[in-house]
């Protein structure tokens, strides 16, 4: 594959979902055609990504310039291993989520389905833009676009509750990104004279420890999509969205864009050595550790299944940020791998929550006792997903947790090691009761109603695919590990 054709793939991959959004809009009157467009586009997108992958894995860095809004700063795409990892995960999971969404939207008789699929496609296209961004400006442009384009999805149901949640969502994400993140980006520009992602970072020696420390803090808190406390409230608020939205966007695309950005900033803007050397990093690590533990504790108190999963996501995102800020080689590998592992695990859990909603109209965990007999596939998948999040074999989450713990040892951070272990215990406490009570609990009155059976076929097949994915990632983590270990090197 020649370099030129590789380079044109980058804007093509970003533009493809955006074009399909227009097509989806045009197929408003013919739902089957509309779903076919979505499915076809998602498969094509993933195929294009697979075409791009081999060259990047060999060390190539195709890039593509779009425009020059500021003298010296371009809007450009530039792919490297971490971006490839993120885009592959998002691309694959788009296919699965599209299948699931079709089943869910039809099974739940949702309104405005065209609008839903249209904005979904737009959001995915923009996520690809985030993955391929070659400098901080391009990343910021797509980051903001992601916030704006997911707003119609979060407020899809149009109720006043959705409107309120939408305000919290936009309010927190836009405030943090404009006041903290943009400030940090412009400050970086004035310190370093460039915004390009460079292995080894661009800020070495460009400022005192205090200045660079404050800058790092601005990035960590300004990247609101990573949900570091206290800027995490948007995540539970966004759970008002339909489940496919929560599944793909808030378990995969939006939140992963956040932690992806933090990883990119740590590895390619600051550089691992700089981050290791800053005194403020230790304090940031403690804030992240607090996020991990506090979010898990809150999750335990939530009876609403999606709310519990939301806080679980906040906690799990903390793992990725922790690994990034540890800035040791195992920490970075663990971080990158956890992006993938958590994506699969969490999306399984959200799919199950949505399937339960469609099949039984239940949202609270206390109502789900004994459900396992009626919906065995769903609850087994939930069990698999839970084990992956907890980090137990034979699920993929084992490996990412392993590397993260290795990272804490490399950095001599015993406190953080204890935090990770504690967190695993808390994960067990808030995740496992759900499938256990579903299989072994005695059903409440209406759960024995004969009408309850498994969710629509599309939903179930999607659930099975991602659950198997969790297991596959345990048995065959090598490709993922290979990409993860390339992150940060020339």
């Amino acid at each position, binding site marked *: 594959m020649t370099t030129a054709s590789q380079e044109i793939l980058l804007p093509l991959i970003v533009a493809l979902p955006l074009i399909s959004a227009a097509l989806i809009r045009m197929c408003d009157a013919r739902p089957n055609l509309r779903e076919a467009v979505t499915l076809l586009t998602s498969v094509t997108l993933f195929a294009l990504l697979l075409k791009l992958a081999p060259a990047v894995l060999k060390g190539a860095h195709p890039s593509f310039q779009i425009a020059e809004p500021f003298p010296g700063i371009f809007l450009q795409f530039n792919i490297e291993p971490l971006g490839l990892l993120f885009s592959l995960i998002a691309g694959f999971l788009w296919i699965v989520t599209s299948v699931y969404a079709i089943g869910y939207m039809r099974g739940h008789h949702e309104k405005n389905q065209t609008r839903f699929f249209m904005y979904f496609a737009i959001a995915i296209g923009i996520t690809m833009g985030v993955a391929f961004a070659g400098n901080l400006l391009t990343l910021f442009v797509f980051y903001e676009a992601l916030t704006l384009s997911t707003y119609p999805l979060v*407020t899809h149901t149009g109720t006043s509750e959705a409107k309120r949640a939408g305000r919290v969502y936009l309010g927190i994400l836009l405030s943090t990104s404009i*006041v903290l993140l943009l400030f940090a980006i412009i400050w970086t520009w004035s310190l370093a004279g460039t915004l390009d992602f460079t292995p080894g970072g661009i800020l070495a020696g460009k400022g005192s420890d205090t200045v660079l420390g404050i800058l790092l803090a601005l990035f960590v808190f300004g990247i609101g999509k990573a949900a570091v406390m206290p800027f995490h409230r948007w995540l539970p608020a966004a759970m008002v969205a339909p489940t496919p939205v929560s599944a793909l966007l808030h378990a995969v695309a939006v939140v992963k864009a956040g932690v992806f950005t933090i990883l990119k900033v740590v590895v390619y803007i600051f550089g691992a050595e700089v981050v290791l050397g800053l005194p403020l990093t230790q304090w940031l690590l403690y804030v992240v550790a607090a996020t991990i533990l506090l979010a898990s504790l809150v999750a335990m108190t939530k009876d609403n299944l999606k709310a519990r999963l939301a806080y679980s996501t906040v906690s799990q995102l903390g793992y990725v940020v922790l690994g990034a800020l540890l800035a040791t080689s195992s920490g970075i590998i663990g971080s990158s791998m956890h992006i993938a592992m958590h994506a699969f695990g969490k999306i399984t859990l959200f799919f199950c929550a949505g399937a339960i909603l469609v099949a039984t109209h239940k949202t609270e965990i206390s109502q789900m006792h004994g459900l396992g007999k009626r919906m065995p596939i769903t609850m087994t998948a939930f069990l698999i997903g839970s084990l992956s999040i907890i980090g137990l074999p034979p699920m993929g989450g084992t490996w990412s947790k392993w590397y993260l713990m290795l990272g804490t040892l490399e950095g001599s951070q015993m406190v953080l090691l204890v935090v990770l272990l504690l967190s695993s215990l808390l994960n067990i406490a808030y995740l496992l009761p759900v499938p256990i009570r579903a299989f072994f609990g005695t059903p409440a009155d209406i759960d024995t109603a004969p009408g309850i059976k498994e969710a629509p076929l599309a939903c179930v097949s999607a659930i099975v695919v991602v659950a198997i994915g969790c297991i596959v990632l345990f048995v065959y983590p090598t490709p993922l590990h290979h990409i993860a270990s390339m992150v940060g090197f020339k």
Partner: protein
Amino acid sequence: MIEAHLPILQVIIPLLSAPLCLLMRNRTVVWSFALMANIITLLVSIFLLQQTLDSGVISYALGGWSAPIGIEYRVDILSAFILFIVSVISCVVLIYSGKSIGNEISEHRLPLFYTAYLLCLSGLLGIAITGDAFNLFVFLEISSLASYILISLGRDRRALTAAYQYLIMGTIGATFILIGVGLLYMMTGTLNMHDLAKRLPSVIETRTVHSAFAFLTVGICLKLALFPLHLWLPNAYAYAPSVVSAFLAATATKVAIYVLLRFTFTVFGVDFAFTDMPLGEILMIFAIAAIFIGSAVAIFQNNIKRMLAYSSIAQIGYIILGISFATSLGLTAGILHVFNHALMKGGLFLAMGAIVYQTGAINLRNFDGLGKTMPWTMAAIVVGGLSLVGVPLTTGFISKWYLVLAALEQGWWPVALVVLAGSILAFVYVWRLIEAAYFHAPGEHTGTVKEAPLMLLAPAWLLTGANIYFGINTDLSVGVASQAASILLGAQP
């Protein structure tokens, strides 16, 4: 041969066309005539801009009488830029007015409207092009008087009081400017700005010149509506016809900013204005106040044109903030935002005008459900609103970037945070509109409206599209702004 006389043509063409409009009775004829005059004016301004970019300052002696006794027209990059902005906005707004004005002004007053419009245009262009201080005052009065007439033509009866309020405050401002010019003339014996710049240094330590500086600054700040001298603006924009609001919002205050730049940097000089006199600090304080108070008050307005007016006050605060830094980056940011804001506010007011045209009123209630019934108009408002916030890929983002960069260059990070916090406030008032339009069901006012006609949509989208275009390709806007900034700061006037 005509190239030699372009400077005078720039002003003469609209000035002479204006009274001719009074002779025409037919609505379409007078509109076409005014539009034609405007298009020729626009072409002249484009030629002038190109000439200045190629060969530097153009100097033109009116009537062949050379400066400093004769009136000189002096076009440098900053003037050419302002001429271009004013002509373009005027042209787009005139195209739009063909359809919209019939709803808001009665037929027999239309020739008066176009006359006043062209007079205002020629006044504004004259201010930007002249190199003589008293000539500037003359054109300032021409444009001000014409704008009082334009505002008073509004349908709402409060337009008359708004025009009267603007008249009183505007005359005070113009009088202060005249006093300042008079004091300068007394001390130096010349009215030509270039000559003043040469002669002032020898008398600059006198109290007379200091007073002149103070009078001029206050007078100009009244005209450009810097907080707290902004009281005339909200009513004037709210009750004037939509076309007039769009035109004035995008041009009148910008030209006043040009006058501030011209007097402060070219006539008095950076060192005097910012080192000897505390102009930088004073402007910065009022600019920050304008940003916060303007945005905060905008959040509580129900009349949307009023909301945009207060938003303009905040945006003028941004421009003055950039100017108050008195550095190359700061001035670039300020001049850039002059251009960007003209595009933003022009587009927004034109889109608002389309809503007035279709629904008849301009309160927040009128926006219920407009997202469905007037999708293209609302889309233009969304884009304009996002530009006010400073979302990437719009011109607002570029301006904010340069402002923050200019602040960080000086090490004033609290100021940078102020700029960004202002964006959040802007977001709040933009969001009320968007929620009403897309989340509320169409109400009694808006149940039966249809999309605005193409003649109204196209100009609005032209400006909105330019907003996005210049948010991505900034060669023209940033290039010209930075060249203008460096000329103001160091090189020859």
